[in-house]
């Protein structure tokens, strides 16, 4: 602090003398910064991308601890609350302000004509939300037993429907949180598989060139020219219906990556083509480095940042693919919970007209897809050394 004040004082005294005194410091900082640090500095400027990172971190954390975050058991049906509308979180009522949010209970009546259940908020029944309440027992990641939930009602017999209830009276909020685990992870796993395939095939194609390159390029063009959804539909309908859910999950992931790798292979190939003529590759070769070492130690690190950006941009396609297939009923099937499976409940618009909250999983799909797009865009701009 003192030094800066001193510099400011001297700059006042000497006029513009401070500019050459300060500039080298900044320049030096840029000069010694690693490539990753430079990327981070440039990425930091994208406000939208930073916000998206936060959104994604929240979503993935909730998905990771979904048993703990969800206030209810997402599989437990409740006949008394079929298609109950969302409860509003309230801070105000006639008695004034309450810092602890509360919800009103339901007053249940029946429509005299259609016998449809009607739910009206009942101001006489007030339930306060508490953190770390005891609720439905669960096993976190299948082995940690607990019944603590992040938040919920102390009155265990009262339901909490922040996002309403579905056609079987199950809590939509809990179901969406559980669905996030499947829907968000399928994108990551699928991208991992695509990355391995894409870098391997694209790398071979770009590094060796010639006939190999020609064959691979034709193959990629061919894959791109097949309409993906009919192909995915055909392949996933071919998954045996008696497979256990885990196997179906991986089957779907592999099917999604079957097409996903092609775009990635193109990026990798282009980079290999450009980089293999560089002097540092020649130097490594003259120094006696093996082909494998050149690829892994010299070529891959120089386009890793690009690879990560393209990977991020290909995750939304995977998430949408899973959602679409499950929505059509040929991807993941109930009782597995994914966003696509949840949206199946909203397939009929007449049902949706009575219970619009059934569309909420779609909102989260859009949110996740947009966030990945923004992060990917930010990363791509940050990774480009020729950006203005």
């Amino acid at each position: 602090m003192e030094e800066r004040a001193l510099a400011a004082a001297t700059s006042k005294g000497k006029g513009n003398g401070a500019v050459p005194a300060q500039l080298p410091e900044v320049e030096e900082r840029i000069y010694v910064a690693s490539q990753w640090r430079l990327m981070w500095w440039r990425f930091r400027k994208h406000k939208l991308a930073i916000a998206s990172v936060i959104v994604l971190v929240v979503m993935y954390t909730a998905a990771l601890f979904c048993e703990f975050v969800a206030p209810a058991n997402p599989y437990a049906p409740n006949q008394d609350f079929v298609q109950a509308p969302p409860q509003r979180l309230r801070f105000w009522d006639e008695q004034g302000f309450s810092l602890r949010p509360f919800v009103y209970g339901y007053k249940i009546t029946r429509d005299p004509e259609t016998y449809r259940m009607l739910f009206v908020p009942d101001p006489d029944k007030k339930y306060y939300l508490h953190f770390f309440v005891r609720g439905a027992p669960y096993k976190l990641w299948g082995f940690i037993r607990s019944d603590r939930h992040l938040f919920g009602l102390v009155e265990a017999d009262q339901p909490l429907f922040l996002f309403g209830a579905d056609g079987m009276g199950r809590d939509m909020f809990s179901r969406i949180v559980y669905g996030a685990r499947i829907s968000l992870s399928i994108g990551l796993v699928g991208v991992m598989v695509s990355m391995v395939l894409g870098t391997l095939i694209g790398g071979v194609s770009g590094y060796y060139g010639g006939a190999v390159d020609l064959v691979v390029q034709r193959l990629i063009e061919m894959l791109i020219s097949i309409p993906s959804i009919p192909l995915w539909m055909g392949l996933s309908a071919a998954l045996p219906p008696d497979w256990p859910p885990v196997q179906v999950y991986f089957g779907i992931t592999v099917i999604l990556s079957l097409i996903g790798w092609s775009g990635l292979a193109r990026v990798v190939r282009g980079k290999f083509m450009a980089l293999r003529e560089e002097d540092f590759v020649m130097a490594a070769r003259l120094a006696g480095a093996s082909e494998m070492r050149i690829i892994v130690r010299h070529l891959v690190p120089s386009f890793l940042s690009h690879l990560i950006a393209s990977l991020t941009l290909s995750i939304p396609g995977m998430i949408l693919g899973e959602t679409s297939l499950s929505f059509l009923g040929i991807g993941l099937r109930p009782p597995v919970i994914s966003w696509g499976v949840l949206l199946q409940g909203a397939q009929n618009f007449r049902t949706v007209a009575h219970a619009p909250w059934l569309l909420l999983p779609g909102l989260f799909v859009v949110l996740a897809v947009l966030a990945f797009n923004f992060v990917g865009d930010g990363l791509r701009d940050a990774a480009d050394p020729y950006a203005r």
Partner: protein
Amino acid sequence: MLQYIARRLLYMVPTLLIISVIAFAIIELPPGDYLTAYMANLAQTGTQASEDAIAALKRQYGLDKPVYLRYVHWVWRLLHGDMGMSFEWNRPVAELIWERLILTFVVSLFTTLFIWAVAFPIGIYSAVRQYSVGDYIFTGLSFIGLGIPNFLLALVLLWFAFSRWGVALTGLFSPQYMDAPWSMAKVLDMMKRIWIPVVILGTSGTAGLIRTMRANLLDELRKPYVITARAKGLPEMRLLFKYPVRIAINPFISTVGWTLPGLVSGATIVSVVLSLPLNGPLLLNALLNQDMYLAGSFIMLLSSLTVIGTLVSDILLAWVDPRIRYT
């Protein structure tokens, strides 16, 4: 140019061959076949088919022969325009597919036109007036358009129209024209309803193309020849459309081939949601019921048509931009 077209035509042969293998694999992959599904259905309703009847059915559908022979038979018949019989409908596949396929391509064609008509002016506007309020609005809209899956948009629109105005926006025809033979009135009726799937299918494509058009035009506008032309006193409008726009338009043409598979893909799900008489619902049903020949031939046909579409767009591109022919 002729040489280029000939080369591209030659490339198509292995592509189509491999697509046929994939399509046939889809036919063969499900465990069991239509007959086992059919038997299970029969058993559920309480009737048992006799051994002889099963054997006769197997022979009739060629299910008793080895896989490679069935593939060769299938391709051979396909080349002669015979796509086999649909088990479920008990009608020739070609007959079932044809009308839906034409409608699918009509919808795709209109969607492409819609995408162009919207993305072209907006892309130019966004580039010329970079960082203006309009640019920000369109950029924001196009990001959202890219993020919303088509079928979700269709659902939301259906729900909105139904709960607000009580109309069901499903189908491509009014009830009175549903089964009517083609006539001028039916076409007009279709035109009244076709804009719904067209707009829904077009959103993501439009959004993507706006982004591309804007980026490309911005690159061109920064080039020295634009400054030269401006310095010579060329009117701004004439300058814009004479040079930079003509170069920036390339992606419009080159993406025809890419948008077509995308549109056909998108149309598959959207048509299930909107219950349109397009290929989607038929394909989905065929896959769910293991109606193998119908599903396989359908995927084969859709893929081949998109391959041809890609070829057409490549030829168009080579015609517009001579540099491409010689690489």
